[in-house]
C-alpha cells in the first residue's frame, strides 16, 4: 500500500474497485467491507414482495379493474403481466450496460437526447409521487378502520371520510415516511420477513374465508366461478381491455426491481432470475386467489358489497373484510397498513434517486443532487418529493370524492408513459447490436419493442377514453374526465418545467452534460 503525500491521493486499489466502472476493477472476491455487498435470494424475494405490496395494491386496484372488465379480472391480471415482463427485460439490459440512479431518465437521454429523456424522468417522478399519495391515502383509511375494529366502534372508521382529518393524518404519515427515508432507517431483516410473511398469510386467509362463505351459502352475491374469467377475449370492448390492462400494469409495478437489483450477487448469477421468478409466481397466485374468491363472494354488481359498487371500489378490502372475516377483519387492516407503510419507504427512493440524477446531470437545479453526508440519501430530493406528494394529495382530496380511484388510473397512464419510453430507449440504444446474437434479437429488439408498443397503445387509448367525463370514478373537471385532466396537467406541467429549465440550464439540453450515445459500440 502506498502513502503518497499528494493531497489528491487516489483511493487505495481495494477501495476504488467500483463494480461496472474501470475495466479490470472487478476483483474476483471482494472482502467484506470492500463492496456494497448484496442481499441473498430470500432477501431479494422479500424486498420484491414488499415493494409490490400486494395487500395494498389489490385493495386499491381491484375495484377500478372490476369496473372496467367485470368478472374477467383474473384474465387481465394474467395478460397484464406480459407487457410488464417484456419491458422489464429491456430495463435489465439497460441497467446492465448503464447502471445509473437516474434509470429511465438517463437511459432515454442516452438513446433519444435530452428532451425525451427529461420527460421520461418527469413521468417516472410523477408516477411515483402519485403512488406515494395513494399509498398514504390507503394507509389513512385502514388506520381508522383498525382503530375502530380494536375499540369496536364502527363510527371511527367513518372519521377517515372527513377530508380535514384525512388530510392531516395523511400528511403525518408522509412526514413519518420522509423522516425514515431521509435517515435511511432500515427495519431489521427479521422484522421485514415477518411483515411480508404476515401479509401473504392474511391474503390467503382472506380468500379462503371468502370461498368458505360462498360454500356455506353466506356469500353476499354468490357468483359461480367460470373458466371464462380467465379468458381475456371475453372482455367486451377494447377500451375496457386497455383500461384494465393499464391498471394491471400498476399491480405488477415494482416487480422489475427484483430482476435488476441483484445483478452483482455474491455467488450465483442465477439469483436475480430466481428471485424475480419466485416473486412473480407468488404474486400472481395471490392476485388470482383474491380476485377469484372476492368475485365469487361479492359478485360484480353494484349492491352494498358488490365489487361493481362505486362506493366501495376505491378500497375494496376496507369494505369487504368485515362481512367476510368478521372479528378477524382486523388482520386485513393490519396487513394493508403494514404493507403500505413498508412500501412507502421503497417507493420514496425512486423519485428521489431520479431527481438526484437529474440534478447531477444539470437537468434540474444542482441542489437536487445533494447527498446527506450522514445518511447517504438524496436528502433534498427526498424532501421535495414528500412535499409535492403531500400537496398533490391535499388538492386531490378536496377536488375529487374518489381521489384514490382516480389517482390509480392516472398512475397506470404515467407508468405506461415512462415505461414505454424506457422500452423504446432500450430498442434504440442497442440498435447496432440487435443481430449480434439470437439472444440480442429477443432481449434488445423484440421483447422491449413489443412491450413498448403495448404500453404506447395503452397510454393513448387511456388518454383518449379518459376525456369522457364518465370515465373511471366519474369525476370531471370542465366536462372532461378528471383522469384525463390529471394526466394532461401532469404531462404539460412537465413540459412547462422542462422549458423553464431549458432557459435556466441550457447545457443539459445542448447535450453537454449527458451525451446521447451515437451508437453502442461493439465490445
Amino acid at each position, binding site marked *: 500500500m502506498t502513502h503518497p503525500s499528494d493531497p489528491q491521493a487516489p483511493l487505495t486499489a481495494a477501495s476504488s474497485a467500483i463494480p461496472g466502472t474501470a475495466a479490470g476493477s472487478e476483483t474476483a472476491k471482494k472482502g467484506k467491507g470492500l463492496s456494497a*455487498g448484496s442481499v441473498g435470494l430470500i432477501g431479494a424475494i422479500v424486498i420484491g414482495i414488499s415493494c409490490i405490496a400486494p395487500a395494498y395494491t389489490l385493495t386499491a386496484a381491484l375495484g377500478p379493474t372490476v369496473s372496467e372488465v367485470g368478472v374477467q379480472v383474473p384474465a387481465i391480471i394474467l395478460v397484464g403481466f406480459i407487457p410488464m415482463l417484456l419491458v422489464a427485460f429491456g430495463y435489465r439490459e439497460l441497467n446492465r450496460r448503464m447502471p445509473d440512479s437516474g434509470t429511465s431518465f438517463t437511459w432515454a437521454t442516452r438513446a433519444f437526447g435530452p428532451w425525451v429523456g427529461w420527460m421520461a424522468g418527469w413521468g417516472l417522478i410523477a408516477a411515483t409521487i402519485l403512488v406515494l399519495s395513494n399509498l398514504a391515502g390507503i394507509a389513512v383509511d385502514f388506520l381508522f378502520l383498525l382503530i375502530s375494529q380494536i375499540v369496536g366502534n364502527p363510527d371511527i372508521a367513518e372519521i377517515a371520510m372527513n377530508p380535514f382529518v384525512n388530510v392531516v393524518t395523511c400528511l403525518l404519515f408522509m412526514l413519518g415516511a420522509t423522516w425514515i427515508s431521509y435517515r435511511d432507517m432500515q427495519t431489521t431483516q427479521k422484522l421485514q420477513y415477518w411483515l411480508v410473511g404476515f401479509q401473504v398469510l392474511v391474503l390467503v386467509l382472506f380468500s379462503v374465508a371468502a370461498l368458505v362463505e360462498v360454500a356455506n351459502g353466506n356469500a353476499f352475491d354468490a357468483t359461480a366461478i367460470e373458466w371464462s374469467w380467465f379468458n381475456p377475449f371475453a372482455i367486451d370492448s377494447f377500451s375496457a381491455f386497455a383500461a384494465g390492462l393499464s391498471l394491471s400494469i400498476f399491480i405488477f409495478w415494482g416487480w422489475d426491481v427484483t430482476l435488476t437489483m441483484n445483478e452483482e450477487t455474491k455467488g450465483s448469477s442465477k439469483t436475480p432470475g430466481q428471485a424475480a421468478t419466485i416473486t412473480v409466481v407468488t404474486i400472481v397466485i395471490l392476485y388470482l386467489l383474491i380476485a377469484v374468491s372476492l368475485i365469487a363472494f361479492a359478485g360484480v354488481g353494484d349492491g352494498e358489497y358488490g365489487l361493481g359498487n362505486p362506493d366501495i371500489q376505491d378500497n375494496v378490502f376496507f369494505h369487504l373484510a368485515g362481512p367476510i372475516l368478521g372479528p378477524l377483519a382486523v388482520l386485513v387492516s393490519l396487513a394493508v397498513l403494514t404493507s403500505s407503510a413498508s412500501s412507502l419507504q421503497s417507493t420514496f427512493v425512486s423519485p428521489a434517486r431520479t431527481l438526484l440524477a437529474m440534478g447531477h446531470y444539470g437537468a434540474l437545479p444542482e441542489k437536487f443532487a445533494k447527498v446527506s453526508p450522514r445518511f447517504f440519501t438524496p436528502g433534498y430530493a427526498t424532501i421535495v418529493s414528500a412535499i409535492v406528494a403531500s400537496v398533490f394529495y391535499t388538492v386531490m382530496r378536496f377536488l375529487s370524492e374518489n381521489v384514490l380511484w382516480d389517482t390509480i388510473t392516472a398512475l397506470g397512464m404515467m407508468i405506461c408513459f415512462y415505461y414505454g419510453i424506457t422500452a423504446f430507449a432500450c430498442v434504440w440504444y442497442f440498435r447496432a447490436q440487435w443481430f449480434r446474437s439470437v439472444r440480442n434479437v429477443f432481449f434488445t429488439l423484440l421483447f422491449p419493442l413489443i412491450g413498448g408498443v403495448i404500453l404506447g397503445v395503452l397510454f393513448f387509448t387511456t388518454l383518449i377514453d379518459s376525456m369522457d367525463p364518465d370515465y373511471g370514478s366519474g369525476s370531471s373537471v370542465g366536462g372532461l374526465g378528471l383522469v384525463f385532466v390529471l394526466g394532461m396537467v401532469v404531462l404539460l406541467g412537465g413540459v412547462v418545467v422542462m422549458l423553464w429549465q431549458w432557459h435556466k440550464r441550457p447545457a443539459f439540453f445542448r447535450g453537454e452534460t449527458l451525451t446521447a450515445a451515437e451508437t453502442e459500440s461493439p465490445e
Partner: protein
Amino acid sequence: MSAAPRIVAGYTADDSGADALALAGRLARASGALLEVVMVLPSEARNASVPTDAGYERFLKEQSRAWLTTASRALGDDVERALHIRYAESFAEGLIQAAHEFGARLIVVGAARGGLFGRSRIGSVADELLHSSDVPVALAPAGSREVPVDLGVTRVTTMIGTRPGADALLEASVRLARQTETPLRLLSLASIDLPAGLDEHLAALTGSAHADEVLDEARRALPDGIAASAATATGSSIEDAVRALDWEPGEMVLVGSSRLAAPRHLFLGSTAAKMLRELPVPMIVVPRTTA
C-alpha cells in the same frame, strides 16, 4: 515505514467529520503516524426493504471520493495519508474493521453531532464506537477543525484511577507521549471518584491520601526515560475538578474505559462521560487491555 503507527480517521462530509480529520491530522503529524482517512458507506447487505441500485451505489462512491479528495486537500502537505471507502452496516462497525485491516492503534471521530450545544453532546456514532471498539478511540470536540494542524500535541494527560485498565491506559499514554515527544502528566481523580454519601471531610482526607498512593504506583510503573508530572484533581464533582485544572490547547487526555466494559472493549463510564462534557481538549478512551 511499516513500523510507523497508523491512525484511522472516521470521516463524514460535515462539521463533525472535519473535526475528526483535523484532530487526526494533527495527531498523525505530531506522532509521525500514517493517516488512513476512511469513509464508511452503508452496506446493502443490511438492507431489508429498499431495492439495491448499482447506479446509485456508484454515484455515492463517486460523491464520497470527491468529498475525500476535498477533505484531503484541507489537511495540508505534511501529513501522509491514504483515502479509503469501506462498506459496513454502521459507521462504527466500518471504522473498527478498518482499524483492524490497517493495524491502526487509534480511531478518531468527531464527538459531537449537530453541535447545537458545543462540546457537551456525544453523538450516536461516537457512542456506538465507545461501546464496541477494541481499539482506542479519540473524540474530537466540536471546533477541532479550527485548531491549526501545526499546534501539534503539547502534553499528554492520563487520568489515573485504581480500576482495571490502568495498565493498558498507562501503556497507551506512554506510547503517545514518546511518539509526540511531549511530557506526560499523571492526573488522579481518586479524590473525587468516591461513593456518594461519605462524610465530606473524611472523603477529602482519605481521598487525597489514596490519590497520592495511586500516583506513586503509576509513576513506578512508568518505563525509564519518561518525564512525568503528577497532579490530583480536587473538587466536589468531576465537573468542578475538570474546570479547576489547567489545560493546554495542544493537550490530549487519555482515560480508561469503564469497568462495565467487556474485556478489551470500550465503555464510557459515568466519570468519563461527565469529563467529556467539560473537557476543552480531545479525549482518547482506551479499552481495558489493548492488543
